[in-house]
Structure formats: C-alpha cells, structure tokens
C-alpha cells in the first residue's frame, strides 16, 4: 500500500512566518545551501561537516518522528516512503532508499538540490559534499527504527558533483 505525505502549509501574517505541519520553515536557495556546505568544508577541522550532519539528523529526524507519531505511520516501508516524499517535496531532490533494515541501508539520488546547485555555482569537485542528505539519512534511519540520531553513520560513496551518474549513500548502524 502506498502512503501519501500530507504536508500542510500555513502562513501566519501576524508574525510573517511559514509553517509546514507546524514546523517553522523558510525558503532558501542553492547559493545559501552550497555556501553553508563550503563553510562546513572550510571549517572541517573545527567540526563543520560533523555539525552540519548532526544538525540535519536532529531536525529532519525529529520532524519525521513527529509526523510518524501524529499520522500513525508504523511500518518501516511506509516510513521510508514518507521520508523520500518529504525530501522531494521540500526541493532537496529525488532520493531512493532502495534497501533498509535496522542495521544498514542504501540510498541513491539521481537529482540533488545540493549537487545541482554546486555544479551550477562552482562546477565539479573531487569529493562528495552532500552533507544535508547525509544528515537527513541519519535522521531517517533513527526515526524509522526508533534509535537516537547518533546511532547511525552515513558515507557518500558516489557523488554527482564528482562526475558520477548518481549519488550513492551507505547507512550503517554504529
């Protein structure tokens, strides 16, 4: 059975704020996302990449946890389906979490906001840079399998910005 993501948008004119399912949300562009990514890389020795991945894991995992609870989404397959729809709906790209269980998983992206944006802004680079999606996947697996966000780690094994035909992510339980 297919589940459909139900995202309700609300604008509160009194404070000029947007909400997606009551989570405060903001519009930003690929310049902002790629420059945050570059900042994380420049500050990698200061924890930049780690902080970006952890921020994503906490926030996206938290959003999904809340969604699953409120909507009564209990099966792992449905939860994964909802997560994929979420990433697509908010403009982050087309993600296919092709395999998943509590201990590991694989995901690929044929289209990616971060990679398309990076290529458009700067061209290619010789290393994976999609820390937004790495954090998202940590959040997804922790939410789907009911674990804390620090339970999983993700490696990006193929990357659109490196010239691969897809981006590929491997998720493992620590």
């Amino acid at each position, binding site marked *: 059975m297919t589940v459909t993501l139900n995202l309700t948008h609300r604008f509160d004119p009194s404070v000029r704020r947007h909400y997606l399912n009551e989570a405060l949300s903001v519009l930003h*562009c690929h310049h902002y996302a790629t420059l945050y990514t570059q900042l994380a890389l420049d500050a990698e020795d*200061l924890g930049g990449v780690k902080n970006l991945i952890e921020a994503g894991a906490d926030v996206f995992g938290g959003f999904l946890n809340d969604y699953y609870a409120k909507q009564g989404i209990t099966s792992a397959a449905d939860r994964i389906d909802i997560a994929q729809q979420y990433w*697509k709906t*908010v*403009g982050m790209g087309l993600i296919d979490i092709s395999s998943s269980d509590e201990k590991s998983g694989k995901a690929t992206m044929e289209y990616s906001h971060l990679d398309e944006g990076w290529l458009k802004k700067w061209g290619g680079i010789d290393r994976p840079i999609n820390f937004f999606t790495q954090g998202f996947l940590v959040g997804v697996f922790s939410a789907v399998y009911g674990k804390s966000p620090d339970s999983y780690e993700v490696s990006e094994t193929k990357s659109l910005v490196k010239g691969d035909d897809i981006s590929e992510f491997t998720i493992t339980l620590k």
Partner: protein
Amino acid sequence: MAIDREKIIDEMSKIKVVGNDEGLIPALGVYVQQLPADFWNGFATRMIKSIDPELADAVETMLERAAHECGYYTGHGIITSEEWDKVVKPMVEKVPEDILYGAYAVFSAWGWANSEIVELVPGEKMVVRAYNYYEADGAKAAGIVRPFAHMIRGVSAAFMDLAYGDQFPNGLDTFTCEQTKGIECGDEYGEFVVTKK
C-alpha cells in the same frame, strides 16, 4: 510611497513552493528549498558553541558571507521574476528606492524576517528593522546573547549592492551591514545599518 507592503506580503506569501518530478524547485533563477528554520539555526549555533571563542568571528563572517551572496543572486532573481512583475512592479514609481521597499515586503512574505526599511539615504545608507526573525529563536535557544542575525545582515547588504552597486552581476560587496540591535540581545527588534564599504 507607491509600494503597498501589506498587499505584497499577502500575495507573495501565497506562492506555492513544491518540488517537481525531479524533487527540485527551479525558481527565480536559482534552485529553492524549504527546510525547517531549526536546521539553519542548528548548524550556526552548533558551530559557534563547539569552537574556540577566538574563532567565532571568522565563522560568523562566513555565515554572513553565505547570506550576502545568496541575497545578491536570489534578490536579483526575485526582482526579475514573473511574480515580481505581476505583484510589485506595477507599484514601483521611484527606481531603485521603491524596489528596495518592495524587496523587504517579499523578505517578510517569505518568512526570512518581518522587516522593513526605516531610513534610506539613496546610494549611501539604509536602516532596517526586523520585528520577528527566526535567527533570534536559534540564538535564544542556544543561550547566545549577542547580535546573531547573519542572514539578515548578509541579505541586507546584498539588497543595497543590487540597488546601488555596479550593474548585476558586478556589484556584489559594495555595501556592508552592521547589526546594532537584536531580539536575541533583549532588544524589542533587530536593527541593521547598511553602509558603503
């Protein structure tokens, strides 16, 4: 002034932003995404809280830089978009001042900050007040009690670059912004003073 701020906010806040079949949102000459404010705040505050305080200025400069560049290109995309032409352009009488006033209405409509220009000296100086902005939430939650609205600072400088700098895309970095007040500091509103570099 010909700019009807409330009408612009009403119209521009209704724009639907949803990923296409590729999960992307190409709009205004850029790719757009709509993520929780907590994510952006979470990264900024984690960085500042996790590093040596002596390095905080450098990291905050980078955060502001990201917004400055984003504001320049996205700002240009906004004021050359179909949506702008339809909603704001008919109200524009004085260029570029009305464009700036209109841009801050869009700034508010899109949830970046409930902000408006309170002083504008054409080509020289602009003062913006923000009465509600998500960056203050993040700073407060992290216990940061100093001006912390890097996004508003960067985008405000970028808007002045677009208005009074060299013709796009050569005007970036003409202006700079100083945040003189902040909700995160206990002030009633955030205040941002943009001047020539």
